[in-house]
C-alpha cells in the first residue's frame, strides 16, 4: 500500500500523471471503438458509454490494488478497465464471444473481473451499493487494509438503498468509498428535475466525510480519492466522493432512435461540456509540466496497438457456448 492517511497530502508526479493519461486514453479509445462496433452491428445488446467521465474511474482506481474491491454501474467499461480488467476479454464479452471475460453470459452491462477485484458492472441501478457494503465488511473482517469502492450515479442516489448503505457503512466504520458520479442524467431525465436537495448532503447526514470535486479534473479526483482511500485503509471508516461530470454520449447508443422526436438535452449543453473534456485538460496539464508531445504520442500508439489486437481477437472469436448457461447456473454442475 502506498496510501496512508498518515502520509502528507501531495500532488501526482509526472509519471503518475502519464499513467492516468494512458488509462483515460485506453477507456476513451475503447469506447469509441465500441460505439463504432455497435453501429456496425457487432454488439447484440444495449451499450452505455462512459465517454466524458473517464477522470472519475481513473482518478479513483489509481489508488487501488487488485485485492481491493469495486462495484460498478450499467456504464461500467471505464471502471473495469481502470481496475485492470483485460481489454481484449472485454471486447470479446461485448461482442458475445466465448473468449469474453464472462464467456458471453453477461455482455456490456455486466463486465466483471473477480481476479482484479472488479465485482461487476450491474444492470440494476444502485445494486452495487449493497454489494460493495458486503465486500467492505469482508475487507474489514480480513483486517488487512483492503477497501471497497462503490461507483454509482446521480440516478442511483435516489434509490433508498443509498441511505441504508450509508447507515451501515457509518455505524460499522467500514472501509468503503462511495463515489457518486454526477453525470446530470437519470437515464433520459435530467436529475435536477427529480432530485431534492444536494446529494452530497445525504452523506453528511450520516456524518460520513464528504468531498465534492470537479469530476472532469483527474488530478482533483486523484487527490480526494487518495485522501478517502487512505482514511479507509487506516480504519477511519467510509467517505463520500461527489464527482461532477457529464456523459457526452446518450444514456445508451442509438437513443435518438428510441426517443423519436423527444429530447432531454440540447446540443449547446453537450458542446459546453466537450469544452471541459477531461482528457484535453489533462493533456494541458502535462504540456504545462513540460511533457513532450512525443511521450504522449508513444502512449497513444500503445493504446491503439492494444485495441487493434483486442478488436481483431473479438472479431475472430468463437460464438458463445449456447449450452453453457445450464452448466453455469449452479457451482458444481460444470465439473
Amino acid at each position, binding site marked *: 500500500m502506498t496510501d496512508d492517511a498518515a502520509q502528507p497530502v501531495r500532488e501526482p508526479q509526472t509519471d503518475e500523471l502519464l499513467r492516468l493519461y494512458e488509462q483515460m486514453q485506453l477507456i476513451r479509445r475503447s469506447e469509441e471503438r465500441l460505439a463504432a462496433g455497435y453501429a456496425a452491428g457487432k454488439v447484440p445488446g444495449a451499450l452505455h458509454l462512459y465517454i466524458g467521465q473517464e477522470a472519475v474511474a481513473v482518478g479513483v482506481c489509481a489508488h487501488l490494488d487488485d485485492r481491493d474491491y469495486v462495484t460498478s454501474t450499467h456504464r461500467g467499461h471505464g471502471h473495469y478497465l481502470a481496475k485492470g480488467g483485460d481489454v481484449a476479454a472485454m471486447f470479446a464479452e461485448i461482442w458475445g464471444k466465448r473468449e*469474453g471475460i464472462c464467456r458471453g453470459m453477461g455482455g456490456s452491462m455486466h463486465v466483471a473481473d473477480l481476479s482484479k477485484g472488479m465485482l461487476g458492472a450491474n444492470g440494476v441501478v444502485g*445494486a452495487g451499493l449493497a454489494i460493495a457494503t458486503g465486500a467492505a*465488511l469482508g475487507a474489514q473482517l480480513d483486517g488487512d487494509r483492503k477497501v471497497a469502492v462503490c461507483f454509482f450515479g446521480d440516478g442511483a442516489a435516489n434509490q433508498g438503498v443509498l441511505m441504508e448503505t450509508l447507515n451501515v457503512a457509518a455505524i460499522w466504520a467500514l472501509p468503503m468509498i462511495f463515489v457518486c458520479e454526477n453525470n446530470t442524467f437519470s437515464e433520459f431525465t435530467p436529475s435536477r428535475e427529480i432530485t431534492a436537495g444536494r446529494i452530497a448532503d445525504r452523506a453528511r447526514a450520516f456524518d460520513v466525510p464528504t468531498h465534492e470535486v470537479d469530476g472532469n479534473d483527474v488530478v482533483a479526483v486523484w487527490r480526494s480519492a487518495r485522501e478517502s482511500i487512505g482514511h479507509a485503509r487506516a480504519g477511519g471508516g467510509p467517505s463520500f466522493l461527489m464527482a461532477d461530470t457529464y456523459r457526452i454520449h446518450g444514456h445508451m447508443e442509438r437513443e435518438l432512435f428510441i426517443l423519436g422526436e423527444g429530447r432531454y438535452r440540447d446540443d449547446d449543453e453537450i458542446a459546453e461540456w466537450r469544452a471541459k473534456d477531461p482528457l484535453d485538460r489533462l493533456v494541458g496539464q502535462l504540456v504545462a509540466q513540460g511533457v513532450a508531445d512525443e511521450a504522449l504520442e508513444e502512449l497513444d500508439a500503445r493504446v491503439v496497438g492494444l485495441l487493434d489486437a483486442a478488436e481483431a481477437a473479438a472479431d475472430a472469436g468463437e460464438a458463445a457456448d449456447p449450452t453453457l448457461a445450464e452448466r453455469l447456473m449452479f457451482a458444481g454442475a460444470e465439473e
Partner: protein
Amino acid sequence: MVRRRLIEAINDALVEEMARDPKVVVYGEDVELSILGDVRGLHAQFGPNRVRNTPICEATLTGMAVGLAAAGYRPVLHMMFANFLFTGMDAIANQMAKLRLMTGGQMELPITVIASYGAGRSSAAQHSDTPYPVLMNLGGIKVLTPSRAADAKGLLKTAIRDRNPCIFLEPSGRGGDFDEVPDGDHLVPFGNASVLREGGDVTVVAIGRMVKLALKSAEALAGDAINVEIIDPRTLVPFDTETVLSSVAKTGRLVIVDEARECCSAASQIAAVVAEHGFDLLAAPIRRVTTANVAIPYAPNAEAQVLPDETRIEAAVRDVLAARRGAAT
C-alpha cells in the same frame, strides 16, 4: 441419536458449522437475541465479528450477502420472516440468483438465507406467507424445506458448505417439535426425498409445515384400511422427481399438500412434472391441496378456512381413490 427440538437442531447446525469454518458469519435483524431461538447463543460464543445485529434494511442485507461471498466469506443471513424476503428481493432475484452465470462462473456465492414461513398463528398476511414458489422460479437458488429436526440440521449444514445460494425455510410453529437427530457430522444431501411412511394406495407428497398434517391424516385413513405413502421432498430445488415417480408407479395416485397459494404453487410444478413424465402411471387425476388464492386473514377461524388441513387432505385422498382415469367426474 439424540432427541432435539427442531429449533435446537438448527442451532446445533450453526454452532457446528461456525466452529468448523471461520469464514461462516451470521448476521441479520435481532440475531444477537434471536426471537425465533435458532441463532440464540451464537453471539456470546462467536463474538460480534461473526454474529452481528443489523439495521432493518433488507434490500441492503441481501446485497451485502453477495458482497461478503465475493470477498470470500460464507454468509448466513437471517431474514426472520419469509415475507421480508420480498423487501430484500432485488439482490435475491437479480444478484444472488444470477451473478454466477452472468460473470461466466467467476463469482462464487456460498450464501445461506434463513427465514421462517407459514401461517396458522394469526400473524396476518404480511407475516404468514409461504414464498417458495417464487424462489423456485428464480433458477439460481436452492430451496430447502425441512419438516423435521434431523433434516433441518442436516440440510442447513449442507447448505452452509454448498457453493451456491441456498434459502433455508424454517416451518413456523414447528420449532418445538422433537425428533431423533443422528450423532456426529449429520449432513443431508439435496435432491433426496424422504419416504416417511410407506403405503400402497395413494402417494402423498407433503412439503415443509404440511408434513405433520399429512402424517396425521395418514393415521386416520389407516383406520379405514387406506394405506398412504408419505413423501417429504425436503428440498424443492433440486427436486427428487425419481422418488415421487417410483411411488406413483406403485400407487397410481398422487395428492400434493402444499401451504403455498394454489396459483403456481410448488404443488403445481410437481403435478406438472408427474403428468409429463408419469402420465401412464396414473390411475386417477392428480389432486393438489393448497392455500386459497387470497391473503392470509388474521382471525383464527378465517385463517383456518383458507389453509390446508387434515379434513381437506383426507377428502383429497378419498377422492383420488374413488376417481378413475377416463371416467366422467
